[in-house]
């Protein structure tokens, strides 16, 4: 108990943590240790936007006391209707910092450590310090990065490196939350096919037969803009850019008798803005925080492993288990380690790989993150990388650097790490 706790502050939570129950998870031990763990474990919230604000509030009120938050955005006036940790005076300030200060002022005894920047700024060492990581992100790309990094961190020989990921997402009245246990349950990449993609229109419709205001805006942004400004990318937050697109789309609309093109719609189409409903965020974040509490304490079974929420016709949720995908490029990839004399050549390494019994490689292609070491196909890459075969391993790869191996004969990729002898 810290000095911030008044009598019975956590009475309701402790009801679950002080006694055994029929639904407790394997290995649950009621008592002080679990309470201390809840109050002291480090938890990371990625994103301090619509979901992030809810998550920080929920976690702080659920007994988590060492919360970290990352967000690269600053507060926009349009966030204020639902991102309730922010006030009008905060517009323009970093979300992570303002959210952290607000929660610390409001909930005694909680430390929220903000980082204003990109998730990609941080390395494995940073992510390793957390027990649980919750994502409240708005982009597929950021989720894939976080998922790949955290799944890739897991070392089977070291259970401490297994970091449960809880991922929340909302889109209008719909949402989802899920629990990912790296290499145990389906990861984000396993179910990438399931993601709804941004609305796209056929190029020919945009070019020749526009019928909707969106078609005109798409024409302005994907046909007229690159022609007018070949070297400039559209910045959806730059009012001059949006105004130019709006005027161009309006001209196009007049030509085809299409009305309804507005500034807001233009920005919405260009930035692919999806309506954000405050209650959807609240429900999905609550589900994520609920899972975080259960995973941290083990007091009852946690979600297995995906919950969809549909709020447009009453309230409907359905929870089911997403299956791992054998050929998932992130968690389906097998890992192999080889000990090798760095004076040996790449060609000798290839021979060693072909002799490896665990995997039946026939024609492996090897790359590091930055370099093509040896590519079996297409023919041009084979020619360009063939000279590497006679080069020493030492000159091509750094010790411990990861090499990705693909082979037309196996559906997955392999991660190879070399230990130099």
């Amino acid at each position, binding site marked *: 108990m810290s000095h911030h706790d008044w009598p019975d502050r956590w009475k309701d939570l402790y009801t679950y943590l002080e006694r055994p129950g029929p639904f407790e998870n394997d290995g649950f031990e009621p008592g002080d240790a679990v309470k201390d763990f809840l109050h002291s474990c480090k938890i990371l919230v990625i994103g301090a936007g619509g979901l992030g604000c809810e998550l920080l509030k929920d976690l702080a009120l659920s007994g988590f006391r060492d919360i970290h938050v990352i967000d690269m955005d600053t507060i926009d006036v349009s966030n204020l209707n639902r991102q309730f940790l922010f006030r009008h005076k905060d517009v323009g300030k970093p979300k992570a910092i303002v959210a952290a200060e607000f929660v610390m002022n409001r909930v005694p005894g909680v430390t929220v450590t903000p980082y204003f920047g990109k998730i990609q700024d941080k390395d494995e060492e940073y992510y390793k310090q957390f027990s649980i990581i919750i994502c409240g992100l708005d982009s597929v790309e950021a989720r*894939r990065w976080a998922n790949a990094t955290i799944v890739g961190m897991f070392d089977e020989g070291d259970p401490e490196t*297994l970091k449960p990921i809880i991922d929340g997402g909302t889109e209008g009245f719909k949402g989802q939350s899920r629990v990912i246990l790296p290499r145990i349950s389906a990861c984000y990449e396993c179910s990438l096919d399931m993601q709804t993609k941004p609305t796209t229109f056929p190029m020919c419709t945009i070019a020749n037969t526009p019928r909707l205001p969106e078609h005109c805006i798409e024409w302005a942004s994907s046909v007229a803009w690159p022609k007018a400004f070949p070297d400039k990318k559209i910045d959806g937050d730059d009012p001059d850019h949006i105004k130019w697109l709006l005027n161009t789309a309006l001209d196009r609309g007049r030509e085809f008798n299409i009305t309804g093109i507005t500034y807001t719609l233009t920005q919405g189409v260009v930035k692919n803005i999806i309506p954000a409903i405050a209650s959807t965020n609240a429900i999905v974040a609550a589900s994520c925080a609920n899972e975080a509490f259960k995973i941290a304490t083990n007091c009852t079974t946690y979600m297995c492993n995906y919950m969809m929420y549909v709020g447009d016709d009453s309230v409907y949720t359905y929870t089911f288990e997403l299956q791992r995908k054998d050929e998932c490029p992130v968690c389906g990839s097998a890992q192999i380690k080889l000990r090798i004399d760095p004076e040996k050549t790449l060609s000798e390494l290839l021979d060693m790989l072909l002799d490896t019994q665990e995997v039946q490689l026939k024609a492996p292609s090897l790359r590091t993150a930055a370099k093509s070491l040896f590519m079996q196909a297409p023919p041009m890459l084979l020619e360009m990388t063939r000279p590497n075969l006679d080069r020493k391993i030492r000159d091509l790869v750094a010790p411990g650097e990861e090499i990705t191996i693909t082979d037309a004969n196996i559906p997955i990729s392999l991660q190879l790490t070399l230990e130099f002898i």
Partner: protein
Amino acid sequence: MLNIMSLKNKKASAAAAGESAKKSKTTPAALRLQKDISDLKDLPSTMKLSFPNPDDLFNFTLTITPDEGFYKGGVFVFTFKVNPNYPHDAPKVLCTQKIYHPNIDLEGNVCLNILREDWKPVLNINSVMVGLQYLFLEPNAEDPLNKVAAEVLRSNRKQFEQNVNRTLRGGAVDGITFDNVIKN
């Protein structure tokens, strides 16, 4: 408290994956792209891939030399730009030459359903290559980008064939001069 061992016991078989995981800076898009590209072993003689920088798999060109159809004899070069959100996002493909084709406009934009509205992450680079090759075998007058060319194809195939032949050699149609794309 957080009980990793109980997580692990749930599915002990999951450990079969292998040994330890180390720092992976390879992005999920790069993992997938390496698989796509290194699988392109047996390309037909009508297609060739080139990589200006062999270390960069995200930018490359595809050369198509159709061996039948209206466009036989031409050499068509497309640039592929794959973005970091591949395969959630489709690759961006442009034709580098000005050609007379119902589904490719004068700026090189290509109207191919799987590049836009029908793209799915299960498709790959090979699917796009096959799709592009198909456009030369069966130009499609129904969903045109170059409306004039589509109209000719629909109404007068003989005329269309002549127009293609002329433009492949750098000739003009309706006052527009096209690039010479004939194989040397």
